[in-house]
Structure formats: structure tokens, C-alpha cells
């Protein structure tokens, strides 16, 4: 692993601006942590049946209480938490020079971007209600996607 890391770091040094990359992936890791916190909160809310009490707005209840909020009986937020943790891990490894982590980071964020678009469409077109915690998660994914687009390219 160490030799792979060294080789990757060496490749990275040849093709990217190392300082810029480190900053970009460090920022991505911090943003992913925000998404992770949001997804954990939503997961706990779903698992405790918090939507059964009136802590949220009616819109949140409509979204989080809908059938779209679960996949095979599992709260979709739990998958979100896993996805954000994966993105955080890849961003961290990428910041430390692992080239393969950079590709996996981009791939995961791309997938999350697609799922986010679907979930936004469900809220807007089917449920006609927006959950603010879901919107925060969407904003985080968009930011991450923005970082993927803005990341340094091979010269």
C-alpha cells in the first residue's frame, strides 16, 4: 500500500499542482463531513420514528414520511450517510496523494449527483414538498460536484 501510495504521489506530483490538489480535496472532505452529519441526523430521525412527532414542518413530514424516503425498508438517508462517508474517505486519501482515490472520488460524486437530481425531481414533481434537510444534502452534493468539475486537470 505504501509503495502504491508513493507511486501515486509521484504521479500526482508530475501531473497536478500538488498544493492546489491537497487544498481542493481537503475542502471536499470538509464539505462531505457536512453532508455526513446531515445524513446521520436524517437517518436517526427515520430510525427513531421522529417523523411521527411534530418536530418538523409539514413539508418535511411529507417528504420523509413518503415511500420515496425508504429503499427496501431502509431509510434512504442511511445510504446517503454511507455515500458521504465514502466521499470523505476518498477525498482524504486523494488529499494525501492517492491517485486512484481521486478517480473513485469523482465517480462516487457523479453517482450521488445523479441520485440527488432524482430526489429533487421526486420532491418537486411528485410530492410537491421540499424537506430542508434534503435540500441541504442536495446543496452539499452540488458543491462536491462543482469541486469535481473544478479539480486540476492533467497538463
Amino acid at each position, binding site marked *: 500500500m*505504501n509503495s502504491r*501510495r508513493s507511486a501515486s504521489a509521484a504521479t500526482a506530483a508530475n501531473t497536478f499542482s500538488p498544493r492546489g490538489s491537497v487544498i481542493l480535496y481537503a475542502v471536499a472532505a470538509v464539505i462531505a*463531513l457536512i453532508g*455526513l*452529519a446531515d445524513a*446521520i*441526523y436524517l*437517518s*436517526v*430521525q427515520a*430510525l*427513531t*420514528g*421522529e*417523523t*411521527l*412527532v*411534530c*418536530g*418538523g414542518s*409539514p413539508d418535511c*413530514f*411529507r417528504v420523509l*414520511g413518503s415511500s420515496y424516503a425508504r429503499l427496501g425498508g431502509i431509510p434512504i438517508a442511511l445510504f446517503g*450517510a454511507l455515500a458521504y*462517508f465514502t466521499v*470523505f*474517505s476518498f477525498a*482524504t*486519501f486523494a*488529499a*494525501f496523494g*492517492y491517485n486512484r482515490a481521486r478517480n473513485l472520488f469523482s465517480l462516487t460524486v457523479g453517482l450521488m449527483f445523479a441520485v440527488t437530481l432524482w430526489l429533487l425531481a421526486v420532491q418537486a414533481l411528485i410530492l410537491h414538498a421540499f424537506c430542508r434537510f434534503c435540500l441541504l444534502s442536495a446543496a452539499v452534493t452540488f458543491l462536491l460536484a462543482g469541486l469535481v468539475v473544478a479539480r486540476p486537470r492533467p497538463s
Partner: protein
Amino acid sequence: MKRYLPFVIVTLVALLSITGGAVLYHAKRLPEPSAPKQVSLREGTEGGHIRGPADAPVTLEEFGDYECPPCGSLAAPLNQLEHDYRPRLRMTFRNFPLNNHPHARDAACAAEAAGLQGRFWEMHDLLYKEQSTWSRAADARVLFSAYAGTLGLDLARFERDRDSDKVKGRIADDEKRASALGVKTTPSIFINDQPIPSAALHPSALRATVDAAIKPAVTP
């Protein structure tokens, strides 16, 4: 050391996430309403609004908040339950307006004021049906007056009654009873004195519980 750093960071975040999630889960897990033995659910039932025969073998008592979305989504299934199990089931509704719902108390007053004109259940059903409209309104009281008009109530009396001490007293009585039973949230439901866990507060589980309560009750 540096080569281990990403592993250490990722592991730490994983541990923190799991611990944080577990702590949050523990903190947010809803306390189930408890029915202390010294408080009989039959005591003070005259304070609540009852639907169904007085001698029904099964009593379902609900503590509800008109602005609470889960209460709203349970309203129609509960009505259906009462209809399906009549005359073996009677339902009692009690007000438990939560402080974090700005219009909940006004809605409870509106229902009680309608009750003084013999139209409590009609207003109860209408408030839940229209919940998404009035809960977003800046001045929900105007809408409640409109609903009273729709139900054919004496509007002047309705508007007088909803601010009256009598109506406020009825809500206070319900809250006193909720407090005695350990009710903390809505909806809270008791079936034959037994608190229903929050996880079972959905139509199919409630139907199964009522079913189970009715069977031994009607067996000679």
C-alpha cells in the same frame, strides 16, 4: 507516520459518526407514554369527545394536536377503524396542542367551540383534512371561522366561544389528564388503558391491536 494519517483520519471519522449517531438515536428515541396504575383511563372520560357506544368493550383514547402531520395522517384511518368496529369500539379524542405548533391551540379552541354547538367531530375532521392549508396561514383563525361557516355554525357564537374560559378549561382538563398519563407527544394512543408504542402508530398495527383487544373482550 504520515502514511498512516489518512487511515487514522478516516477511522476516527467512522468511529465519531457511529458514536454520534448512536448518542443521537438514544437521545431522540421517543419515550413511550406510560399509564401509571393509580390513574384509571375511565376517570374523567367525560372531558373528552367520545364517538361510539358507552358500553363498547374496547376504548381507544387519542391525545392529538391538529397541527401535527402524523395526527392528520392518522385521522382518516382512525375514523375508518371506528366505523369498521362499531359498536364494539369507542373512540375518545383529547386535545394536546404542542407548543412548537403556532396554530395548534387555536385549532383546539375552534374544535371545542364547534363542540359547544354539537359539531365537534365535524370540525375535528375538517381541521385534519385542511391541515396543510391552515397550518401555513399567517392568520389561521380567519380560516377556522370560514370552516365554522362551512359547517353551518352560528358564527358569532363560535367566535365568542373559542376565546371563552369554558373552551380553554376543557383543553386544560385534557392537558391535565395527558400529564397524569405521562403523555409527552402526539399522537399518543391508549387502547383499553394500554399505551401504544410509537412504532405501532400506523393503521395496520392499530387495527391489529384493536382486533386483539376485541377478541378476548367478546369471548364469553
